[in-house]
């Protein structure tokens, strides 16, 4: 095992359980928003044990409900229908019912200044655009997955880095996106994803507000 891999294991070990759960929740959102989730993701989602702590504050109860609704929707959803939903919502012909991009939500247009700012910040953080991708980086799923990586790279990025990324690139528009997703015509399983995303983004907003 190389020294680099050992250091990386230490980095992963340094991420607390709570931080890991946050990162994995972002990963889950990314997995469901970037492509129609396959049976392995749906099975994993259904198997996640979610428990409400007896001392849970009000905001956590909302999140607990969102998890329950999402898992129930996953139980009910047939894989083929989820794929069809995903296609209608996010692919379509030219575009789907939803336009899951920050620039579009913030300016009404794709490939706008918010994307330019995001690209600058991604470069500064050390992220490179994956070769062969066809979509701009301000896609809701890509942002969630980036956030998961930032949280997991605790040796390199701290709370302030997470907070800045969230405030600059996610908070301004994602709650609205997830709200819209809940009322989309084509959404059924994705109604639950919308509720889940909205609750989680709200919780994260409150989390990040807890700073000096």
């Amino acid at each position, binding site marked *: 095992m190389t020294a*680099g891999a050992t250091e990386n294991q230490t980095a992963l070990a340094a991420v607390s359980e709570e931080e890991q759960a946050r990162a994995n929740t972002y990963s889950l959102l990314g997995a469901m928003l970037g492509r129609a989730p396959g049976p392995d993701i749906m099975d994993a989602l259904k198997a*996640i044990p979610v428990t*409400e702590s007896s001392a849970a504050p009000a905001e956590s109860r909302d999140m607990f409900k969102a*998890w329950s609704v999402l898992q129930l929707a996953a139980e009910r959803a047939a894989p083929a229908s989820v794929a069809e939903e995903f296609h209608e919502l996010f692919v379509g012909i030219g575009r789907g019912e939803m336009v899951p991009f920050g620039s579009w939500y913030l300016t009404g247009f794709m490939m706008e200044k918010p994307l330019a700012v995001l690209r600058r910040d991604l470069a500064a953080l050390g992220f490179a655009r994956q070769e*062969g991708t066809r979509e701009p*980086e301000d896609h809701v799923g890509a942002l969630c997955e980036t956030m998961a990586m930032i949280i*997991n790279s605790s040796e390199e990025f701290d709370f302030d880095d997470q907070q800045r990324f969230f405030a600059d690139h996610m908070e301004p528009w994602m709650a609205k996106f997830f709200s819209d997703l809940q009322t989309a015509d084509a959404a059924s399983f994705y109604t639950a994803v919308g509720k889940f995303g909205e609750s989680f983004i709200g919780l994260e907003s409150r989390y990040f507000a807890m700073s000096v």
Partner: protein
Amino acid sequence: MSNRDKHKESIKTDRRKFVKGVAVATGAATVAMASGGAAAALPEGEETKAGTEESKGYHETQHVLDYYDTARR
């Protein structure tokens, strides 16, 4: 520990308590999320994904989280 440090530590504790409100054991799911993307999976290759990856050498993190896939149609 200075007063300022104590204050910072107590905020960190508050944050941990806040996140602990709903205990989610997502551990096992991570493997599926990681492999789900690599498999990519829809026969017609329906992907609209944007991707980013760390250009630095966090190989194991990349392996765990690298479920971006190229769009294929």
